[in-house]
């Protein structure tokens, strides 16, 4: 079963996405409510197949979390999908340069599932 880590400070959203993805029986979802928690989980050796990463989070933003992932040799190959309400052309542009995908909130669950499948099958 493929592992997905969802990093978002919106607990309700992570709960819903986790439930719906796990319902497909194809994925196991690890939730992290901040960039810091994401890094702590990774440090414990729980390496997911993909990370869904919010951008606007308190303390460590999604941009900085992304940079921390890429600076670490053990984690820099993990595909990252930005999942964010930031819809300005710059965020979308820079997100697209760096990450594997950039999904704007609100999103259709079916679309999210399709794009995850495209990356990790």
């Amino acid at each position, binding site marked *: 079963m493929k592992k997905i880590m969802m990093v978002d400070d919106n607990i309700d959203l992570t709960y819903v996405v986790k439930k719906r993805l796990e319902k497909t029986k194809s994925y196991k979802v690890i939730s992290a409510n901040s960039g810091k928690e994401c890094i702590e989980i990774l440090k414990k050796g729980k390496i997911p197949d993909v990370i869904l990463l919010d951008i606007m989070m308190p303390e460590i933003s999604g*941009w*900085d979390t992304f*940079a921390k992932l890429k*600076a670490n040799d053990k984690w820099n190959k993990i595909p990252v999908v930005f999942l964010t309400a930031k819809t300005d*052309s*710059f*965020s979308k*542009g820079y997100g*697209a*340069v760096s990450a594997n995908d950039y999904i704007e909130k609100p999103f259709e669950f079916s679309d999210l599932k399709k794009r995850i499948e495209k990356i990790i099958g």
Partner: protein
Amino acid sequence: MSTIQSSETIKYLMRTLIHVIGRRTSENFALETLSDAINELEPKYNFLKLIKVGSVVYSAELDAIDVKMDINYVDTEQLSKALDEFLDVIAKSLGGSSDFDFQEAEHFLLTEVQDELGERHNLILQQIGINLDIKQNQFIIEMQEAYKIKIKRMRKTDVLDHLIKAIILTLKRKRSELDASKILARSINKYQKEYDFLKYIKIQAPPTNKEPYKIIVTSEIDNIWSAKMAKAIQLILEESGKTSDLKTLETFIEDIKSQLGRSDIQKIEKIGINLNQVHNTLQRQKNEIIFSKTLELLIKVISDKTSVSFAVTIVDSIIEKLKERHTVLEHIKVEKSKYEEGLKAFEITEEINSESSHDLGRAIKNIMKDIQNHFADKSNSFIEDFKKTAPSDYISEIEKIGVNLHILELRKSLF
């Protein structure tokens, strides 16, 4: 054996001295100098009264120099001693007060006199016991020694203090005094490990972030070997110069020189600091400076909308991706642990300066294109933002190496 007698050669030597000294001063002054020298030595060498120096202007009709034939019978050793001292007295009156200035004056006086005397008279002087060649070599050695002592004695503290002030004033033209002092402090710190004596240049951080750093040269620096110090100062100048924008880079050293004045420049050169060499090195470092500015601008533009560490991540990943196509990018190293430090995460090796600037231009163009291509549809937001942030001299400099931002915009609008 030459048929020329000593009296004739001495007369010719006197005339030559009048001509050489007179060329730089006046013939009257030359005559007075010679006359004074003879008067000074006459009590010691009585036979010098046989040489008469007139007080009138030398001319073909009225010879100002008269050397009695009796001088041919003077003991050669005594004559040699007298002439040797005579030349020293003249040089002393022409030179300054220090040993070095005197030796320098004598050296140049002898060179010119020897050239004008010609082979025949030089030979006669040698027979008397005056070998101008040997005398000159002796002065060169003495000059070198005196020069070393002079440099050692020279207070480097003041010279360096003036130089530091001049660097800050030059850097200040394009930025605040605080930033200017920070750049210089950083440049000094960079070389402190390699040149331990730089600890004698004290850097005091300001109590508030509104005042500049205080950079004080302490007197211990006077005891440091000049050549080693000159090398360190040149590196500091290069490091500070590299932070200039491309336009002021051209005039960086000239601007420092104009702040210093002639006397300080001479002293700086005497320590061994070659300002022209720094200028040439800075010119050769253009590739490095252009690419460093490019990185700085990219990080600024991207981080304004994201974050510094993210901006560095993007730039790093694009450079890595393009290294296969652009070998010039092999000279860019990144330290991933320094992502959060922005530009400091990157290291540009000096070898980039030996690459063709057009290869560098192509690489920069493709970095821009790569970022721009990820922007949706016909959006030129990235290039527009980059153009707004980049200083005009940078834009014109990259245009010279083939990076035309306007064409990049047009290209995106077309496809």
